[in-house]
């Protein structure tokens, strides 16, 4: 009995000629501990103007939005841009315990992932993309003026946030309500049970009081400063009317300029975004959010491709350009 290490190494990656991409498993340190990540790159040696880090969402949304994140990464790579997705600490194949998951851990993970992407894909310019809580993390890493991590905002050149969570309190309560409904099905003492002050369980993640308070206190509009790079805030809704909180967020990020864009995808199934997406069909499952996901992927992919095609992005004084790809230290401190 002996392990074929050469074959194991060969199975770590594959080329998809249909899409013109390569996917490769990485085992990086992200957020201070080991985890697994997947780097998706375009085939060939073409210049890679910008790479993207896909910031995962929180709790069970980590799973429900996973297919979107995977397809986003593949679409970005298909359009010539490398993309890195990863298991944040406390999730999936990561090393840390699930009890360590917090807003701070998500932010630390994303910051680490930027460095991993730069090292592995050889890109100078980096964009962040995420949905729901992952979208909020992407924005905070790029443009958090409260600087909770003891460092300046990360040097990123673009941000795309799909339905970012603007108010952490409402978000956490919605997750807790979903958890309560699930718990009710499984335990005989659930009905009438209060969410304990010590913390709650939300989809495999235990959020203690302190971490819950940090998320509840999240008010994106109050933390974000104008962002020197380009940003896309994407709203999903049954109507085309922009929501005020997202319009304000886009305005804040762009400082009133065209650097930030609010997009709206109008679909009747938009309200299911972030919820369980599979229905059982015989011995298989069927994804009921396929069309919604495809619409998001196309919109974000087209926006990112247009961005990468620009020779140089106009940025405020003191901020780096996409082509220059330096730091944005002057942008948000």
């Amino acid at each position: 009995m002996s392990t074929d290490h050469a074959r194991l190494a060969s199975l770590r990656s594959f080329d998809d000629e249909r899409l013109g991409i390569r996917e490769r498993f990485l085992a990086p340190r992200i957020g201070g501990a080991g985890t697994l990540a997947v780097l998706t790159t375009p085939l060939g040696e073409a210049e890679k103007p910008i790479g993207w880090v896909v910031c995962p969402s929180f709790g069970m949304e980590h799973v429900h939005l996973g297919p979107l994140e995977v397809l986003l990464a593949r679409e970005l790579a298909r359009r010539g841009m490398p993309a890195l997705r990863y298991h944040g600490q406390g999730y999936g194949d990561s090393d840390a315990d699930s009890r360590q998951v917090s807003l701070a851990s998500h932010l630390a993970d994303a910051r680490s992932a930027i460095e991993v992407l730069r090292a592995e894909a050889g890109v100078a310019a980096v964009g962040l993309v995420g949905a729901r809580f992952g979208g909020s993390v992407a924005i905070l890493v790029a443009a958090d003026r409260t600087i909770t991590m003891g460092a300046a905002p990360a040097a990123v050149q673009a941000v795309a946030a799909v339905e970012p969570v603007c108010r952490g309190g409402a978000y956490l309560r919605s997750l807790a309500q979903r958890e309560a409904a699930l718990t009710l099905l499984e335990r005989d003492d659930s009905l009438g049970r209060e969410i304990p002050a010590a913390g709650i369980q939300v989809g495999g993640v235990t959020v203690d009081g302190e971490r819950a308070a940090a998320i509840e206190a999240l008010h994106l509009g109050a933390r974000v400063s104008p962002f020197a790079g380009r940003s896309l805030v994407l709203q999903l809704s049954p109507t085309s009317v922009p929501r005020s909180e997202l319009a304000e967020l886009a305005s804040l990020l762009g400082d009133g300029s065209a650097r930030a864009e609010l997009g709206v995808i109008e679909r009747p199934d938009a309200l299911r975004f972030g919820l369980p997406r599979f229905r059982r069909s015989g011995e298989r499952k069927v994804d009921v959010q396929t069309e919604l996901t495809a619409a998001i992927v196309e919109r974000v992919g087209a926006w990112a491709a247009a961005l990468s095609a620009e020779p140089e992005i106009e940025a405020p004084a003191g901020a780096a350009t996409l082509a220059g790809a330096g730091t944005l230290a002057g942008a948000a401190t």
Partner: protein
Amino acid sequence: MNEHPVFVPAGEERIAAVITLPDGVPSQLVLLLAGLGVRSHGDRVWTRAARSFAAAGIASIRMDYLGIGDSTGQTHDGPSPVDQAEAVLRTAMDVTGIERIGVVGHCRGVTTALALTGRLDGRTRLICIVPGPYEVPAGDRAGRDTPPRRARSALRRGAARARAAVRGTTDVKRWRMVRSVPEGLSDTDVLFLMLSGGEHIDALQRQAAALTRERRTDRATFAARALDLRGIAGFRVPAAAQPQLIDACIGWFAAGSP
């Protein structure tokens, strides 16, 4: 312990999986099958199981079905879940050189595991994880108004529907998993592991004994036992329930080692 993420070919698609190897020579290789979910499974039970197995000298592999997690393809197209599981297991066997095989299935992964085991050569040990019975409280608790009344009412309606939907699988007298044990299953030691058995474990043990008698000629054996996880684990296996479950699995596989 070493973890090796791999993409297993399945036609034009790739099945993402993680092979976990112990530091020393592994005693056996165990395939961990979720229903149709991600490879770490809900609440990361397969991630923790794989690492605990490695500490006990057992190699394992966990997988994303096509269209799930890091795999390519679609959930509704391509090879069947059993074909996918077989491709992953045979690749892991080739790469590691391990021939002694175990399988664990949870939720619909049990059906896949039973069908897969029927295709394998050599003696195999299989664990079918069975959810405990669902017990939703009756109206005598309705006076506690902690969720607002409207939300509570909605939750209760949802619970009633869900309870009705799963009754067929949790009532062991009509239990589909036992009935779906394939006729051709041979050379397999099957353990039905109930997360919180209560009074149902007796019925399940009787069925397991009957299956063993009926299938004595093809050398398949069936056993059943329950864990004391009532109020902790139902369909899902939260972190608090995982050590007991994982220890039970390791014990079953270790007992089958030469």
